[in-house]
């Protein structure tokens, strides 16, 4: 029996570890380092309707225990992703989760409709942290009604299950999660980056050309764990957790919090072999903890002992 195998809406995963969107491109670079078929899944870079150049550089800045990025969703656009990137990825035995982004609802709908038909795209991940041009740039992911509406519009057209990626920059994450669940989301991925900024000591100006950027890495893990702990008790759909994962122990912590699978972002830059390393280390960690299957750990932080027994049965 595979102690790491997980089934989620649309996804049969060999193991629960996958690179997070934007930290792995479309897999080409990492394919030179290891066999992508080892991964549970791949969350590819955000795809938008038309190609985007992204923000001016510098696009990244280091912070204490984390980093800021303001890539600006650079990507070759839907057509090229469908024609070149996804077919190339078909050579690997790994399900793709396509990260979908846009500036207005119609963009999301169109990208979702088309990309969800690609044979190896087994699920979508809606990146709702993007600014919504129609509401003056307020992110889709900070207004429950807008996020719900977007989710249901995408659900109508998608041929694959839809996971919604929650933004942590909200006062009430449970409210957001419940709204997108009502909108028909099949799952959640959380969290996207926290908004942050770093200033240059010499010039006084922001280091990032875009001024502010998204904070990722170990620094944000406690925020993500807390949010998943809260949300997983209040929704009936599974959660793919992420934020600062660097070790197999971190993965376990995410399962305890309530995640059913885990994505690794920033750590791929620190150690490009991190995903396969974690996959290799998990079984012995399960032995130490004394569980047979990793999914036995989901929600252990809040489940009563009764509930745990029930779920295991």
């Amino acid at each position: 029996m595979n102690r790491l195998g997980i089934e989620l809406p649309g996804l049969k995963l060999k193991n629960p570890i996958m690179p997070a969107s934007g930290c792995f491109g479309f897999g080409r670079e990492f394919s030179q380092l290891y066999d992508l078929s080892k991964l549970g899944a791949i969350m590819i870079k955000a795809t938008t309707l038309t190609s985007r150049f992204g923000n001016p550089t510098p696009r990244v800045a280091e912070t204490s225990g984390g980093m800021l990025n303001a890539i600006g969703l650079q990507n070759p656009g839907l057509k090229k992703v469908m024609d070149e990137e996804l077919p190339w990825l078909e050579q690997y035995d790994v399900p793709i989760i396509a990260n979908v982004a846009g500036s207005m609802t119609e963009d999301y709908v169109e990208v979702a409709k088309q990309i969800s038909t690609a044979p190896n795209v087994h699920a979508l991940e809606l990146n709702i942290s993007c600014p919504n041009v129609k509401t003056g740039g307020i992110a889709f992911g900070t207004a429950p009604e807008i996020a719900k509406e977007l989710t249901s519009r995408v659900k109508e057209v998608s041929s694959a299950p839809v996971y919604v990626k929650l933004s942590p920059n909200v006062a009430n994450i449970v409210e957001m999660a419940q709204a997108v669940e009502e909108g028909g989301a099949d799952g959640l991925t959380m969290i996207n980056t926290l908004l942050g900024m770093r200033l240059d000591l010499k010039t006084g100006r922001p280091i990032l050309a875009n001024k502010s950027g998204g904070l990722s890495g170990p620094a944000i893990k406690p925020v993500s764990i807390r949010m998943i702990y809260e949300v997983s008790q209040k929704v009936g759909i599974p959660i793919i957790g992420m934020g600062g994962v660097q070790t197999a122990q971190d993965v376990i912590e995410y399962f305890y919090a309530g995640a059913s699978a885990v994505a690794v972002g920033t750590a791929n830059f620190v150690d490009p072999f991190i995903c396969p390393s974690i996959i290799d280390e998990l079984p012995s960690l399960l032995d130490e903890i004394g569980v047979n299957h990793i999914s036995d750990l989901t929600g252990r932080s809040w489940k009563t002992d009764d509930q745990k027994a029930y779920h295991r049965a």
Partner: protein
Amino acid sequence: MIKQEKMTITCQREIAASIYELTLEGQLVDQMVEPGQFVHLRVSEGIDPLLRRPISISKIHSDRQAFTMIYRAEGKGTQLLSEKQIGDKVDVLGPLGHGFPIEKNMKGKKALLVGGGIGVPPLYELSHRLLEGDMDVVHVLGFQNESSAFYIDQFSQLGDTYAASVDGTVGTKGFVTNILDQLKFDFDVLYACGPTPMLKALEERFRDKRAYLSLEQRMGCGIGACFACVCAVKDDPEQSAYRKVCSDGPVFPIGEVVL
């Protein structure tokens, strides 16, 4: 092929003010092919600092599976690196990117190598390679001042070497362009690495020549996956073409990308 290896420090010394020369030993060296490639270093096992640091390969010692880098200890990462001792391990990812192309059949031709500050190091391996191809090399090196200048003697052993410094404490007072404008070297190919203003000044002067510039950019992954280090392509009407400094570069033909 890109490899990751914990390489062993065989030599580390301060060769100028805050400028360190560091030699690392390990099998990864077998992968190093082009002058101008770089490595991505993890200087701490923990999260402080979190990201790797890109540093150019300055000299490849294939015979003894070692390579040398020269770097300035400035921020947290390079400071930590400078505190490491002989025998310590450093986590190296590399070799990365595309370096300076060495063209064929250039015997007897003249190469002009222009370096500024911590852009000087990759030119050292390059110069050796060009000499191996029996080219004539001339070096023009710029520094802030005498105390931060390095390797002028080493370059002199390979070919004519001119130095400039901002305060005039070593070589000509001013920038490398002062030397170039004064001496008006004749050359068949130009190679340069240094701060962006220097590269821009070279582009102005030599955009029609055969020339290669090595760029710097803040990096995330260092291998082409994160789009942190992107620069725009010149004369691209759709303004959508780009190059990644880490994997397409760091060396580009003059005029290819927007500096």
